[in-house]
């Protein structure tokens, strides 16, 4: 990270200054113009109260409108709860697979398994959701299969409920959990696990006291990414959940694109951003990790 002491200060000092300027400029332009200022602008817009067409005063009425309307608050709570559940499920489902790839599989089998996990995620989320729609809709494969097997008598619609949304969200998120878990588990020395057995531990206690603590940076990195992707997802809940999904990003979309009510939409956006940041922060505090130690490895 730091400049080695071997570089003499004086002759190359101007050169280093110039180099710093050259590599800092694109970064500063990117973060200021495309990330920071747009979000400040969004915050300012969310504080606009419409008085008349193109006339605004400053105030928190848009936020009052959000918190005063139970439908909006419920959608947010629902979205957060579903995202937390999706994150937990993804972790529970991905962990054994990651452990198998990192610690049990070997050689070609290991590479093949890893590629098999990777491959579906190079394909657009849209295509993956489309696959689930083809399987689960009323005229879909599952319904036909069950009729053919004589389990149901007529077509059944499996789409447009919370269970299906959850299946889709977990499916969409798996890789983002598997990869950080594998890289965290890879660095765990096998002899530590063996030592655990030698000391009289069983599978449960070793998992609790050796494996999970070691994998914590990977668990937290995967959980943050999955939580964020799920919370901010629009595609999967909209296509698999339909109108009943009441996903919060869909409310933001409605305010911005359908109603062209950017002031309220911006307030919604900020509520979502504040909620997600708060939850990620709490997660980091509870696990004793930091953003740079998990995401920025």
């Amino acid at each position, binding site marked *: *990270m730091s*400049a080695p002491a*071997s570089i003499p200060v004086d002759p190359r000092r101007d*050169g*280093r200054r110039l*180099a*710093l300027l050259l*590599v*800092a400029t*694109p*970064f500063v332009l*990117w*973060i200021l113009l*495309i*990330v*920071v200022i*747009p*979000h400040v*602008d*969004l915050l300012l817009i969310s504080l606009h109260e419409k008085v008349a067409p193109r006339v605004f005063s400053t105030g928190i009425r848009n936020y009052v409108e959000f918190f005063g309307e139970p439908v909006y608050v419920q959608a947010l709570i629902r979205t957060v709860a579903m995202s937390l559940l999706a994150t937990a499920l993804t972790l529970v489902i991905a962990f*054994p697979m990651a452990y*198998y790839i990192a610690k049990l599989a070997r050689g070609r089998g290991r590479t093949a*398994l890893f590629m*098999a*996990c*990777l*491959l*579906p995620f*190079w*394909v657009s989320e*849209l*295509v*993956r959701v*489309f*696959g689930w729609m*083809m399987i689960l809709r009323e005229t879909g*494969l599952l319904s*036909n299969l069950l009729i053919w097997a004589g389990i149901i008598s007529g077509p059944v619609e499996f789409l447009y409920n919370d269970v299906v949304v959850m299946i889709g969200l977990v*499916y969409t998120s798996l890789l983002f959990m598997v990869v950080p878990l594998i*890289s965290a588990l890879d660095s765990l020395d096998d002899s530590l696990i*063996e030592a655990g057995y030698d000391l009289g531990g069983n*599978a449960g206690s070793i998992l609790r006291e050796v494996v999970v603590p070691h994998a914590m940076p990977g668990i937290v990195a995967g959980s943050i990414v999955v939580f*964020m992707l799920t919370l*901010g*997802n*629009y*595609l999967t809940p909209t296509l698999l959940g339909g109108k009943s999904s009441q996903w919060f990003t869909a409310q*933001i*979309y409605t305010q*911005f*694109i359908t109603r062209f009510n*950017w002031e309220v*939409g*911006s307030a919604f*956006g900020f509520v*979502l951003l504040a909620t997600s940041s708060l939850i990620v922060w709490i997660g980091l505090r509870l696990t004793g990790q930091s953003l*740079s130690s998990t*995401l*920025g*490895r």
Partner: protein
Amino acid sequence: MLRTLPRSPFVDAAYKAYVGLFLIYLAVPLVVVAVFAFNDSLFPALPWKGFTLDWFIGTTEPRIGLLHDRNILRGIGNSVLVALATTAVSILVGTTTAFLFERHDFPFKSFAYLMMLAPLVIPGVILGISILAFSSTVANALDDRFGWEVAALRPGLLLVVLGQFSFIATIATLVIAARLRKFDRALEEAAFDLGATPAAAFLTVTLPYLAPAVIGAGLVAFLISFENFNTTLMLVGSDPPLTITMFDRMKQGSTPVLNAVSLFLMVGSGLIGLISVMVQRDRGEGRAG
């Protein structure tokens, strides 16, 4: 449990079954989509009515194949354009930013590092609306003050590129910085000792070493850009990229041409993904995006 330790056959079998189920869960939706691209029916659903290539090469209504569907082709064109632009800017900024954090010390460095990571923890939809809001604030200001109407600042491909770049640059930076961190600076020092200028040392020693990470980051950036939906959704104008075009059709319920496009995407992304793995293989560790 380790491969070196004895396990009960029952636990072993149960574990293998779990791995098998996991793989089936991963594969089934994709296999279904691929197979039904060849179904000789007007709907992407059962019953199976025989094999056809119409959804790739069909030319007459309602059996317009992928190769003759104007909107789909235009969507693919827009997506390629956006992905190329996003990739170019992302690897350029990703490379300079990697050097900034790996090679330089400056005040508030750890804060700057957090700001660099921030786009990863901002939901895509919010990155989209903030860029939409800011660019239109600027556009309105220019219009009010000077009477200039700057079309580029209204929803359209430029904004889509900016929106995707805002977080793809973070991913590119992380991939390139990981490789730069392992670079032995003695090699550069040796180049200096042999009389190389800093520019020559960078071009002949440092950059070739970084190349696999830069190419890998570029391929990953291209893939992420091509399939991005959430950020793009908020920024599209009259030239929708492929994901938006397909989304609109999917909601309406379309012909199996959607399956054909999906299969095309699977093959395309699969190839790009494989190349990115092979390019970065010598690193011994990979960050997939």
